[in-house]
């Protein structure tokens, strides 16, 4: 089973990387970009029997840092 985990900074947590990319987009002449936030995609290939709880635990224990990040799990 293919699973895609999207990890991103919680709202309100400053994203200096996103801000720099935002400036770069403006520098390239793209108008109307309101905000840029950068996250991380983790693609997993797991046994069919892997439970939602297991996936959740993987995210909480390692893939995301719950102090600064949220995650969402998408089964493909």
């Amino acid at each position, binding site marked *: 089973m293919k699973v895609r985990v999207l990890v991103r900074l919680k709202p309100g*947590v*400053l994203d*200096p*990387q996103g801000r720099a990319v935002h400036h770069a987009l403006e520098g390239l002449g793209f108008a109307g970009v309101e905000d840029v936030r950068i996250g991380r995609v983790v693609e997993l290939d797991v046994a069919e029997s892997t439970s939602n709880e297991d996936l959740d635990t993987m995210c909480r*224990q390692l893939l995301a*840092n719950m*102090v*600064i990040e949220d995650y969402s799990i998408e089964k493909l």
Partner: protein
Amino acid sequence: MGFGAAVITFPGSNCDRDMAVAIEKVSGREPLRLWHGDSELPDGLDFIALPGGFSYGDYLRSGAMAARSPIMKSVISAAGRGVPVLGVCNGFQVLTETGLLPGALMRNASQNFICRTVPLTVENSQTLFTGGYEQGETINIPVAHHDGNFFANEDTLNQLESEGRIAFRYAEPCNGSRNDIAGIINDQGNVLGMMPHPERAIEPEHGSSDGRGLFENALGALLEA
């Protein structure tokens, strides 16, 4: 067994030798050098240092992989028993990733790697690590990091402030850290994490020996015990 200190090396640590030298120069005893894959700490250990560097190449997040390495389970339980633990730079990142210390260390607000000596204010001189300094004293210690921007939510920051758990603060803004936090202790007071490198400032030839007081105080108390 008498006094025993240990320095833990992860793949990618690069300040482990400096840390070991600082401990030996101050205590007169050579610390044990332990490897991340060791699962057990030797008995009778009374000081553990997590050094700076780029453990596991900063994969996933700085300190994230090291925090889940076999030896850290033992370090977490030793910290729970009250054994002093010092984490510097990447060591601080590892401590936040294990949950031994609150908050997280994010990319510097400037996006730049910062490598220079900075003034720090000793915010709490009543800890095991800072007892050799005066309250409010300014000391000069080098920083060398890309991910030193301390973040915690408002409740955590208020708790750290009100409980006197901020050991060091940058005397001038450095990397975007909330409340200019440079180093914090846990609620028991036996775990210190800090981004600046006291082990790089222990003798005049380093340009500053202001970091020596930290080792003298933390190790001195143990040597006398």
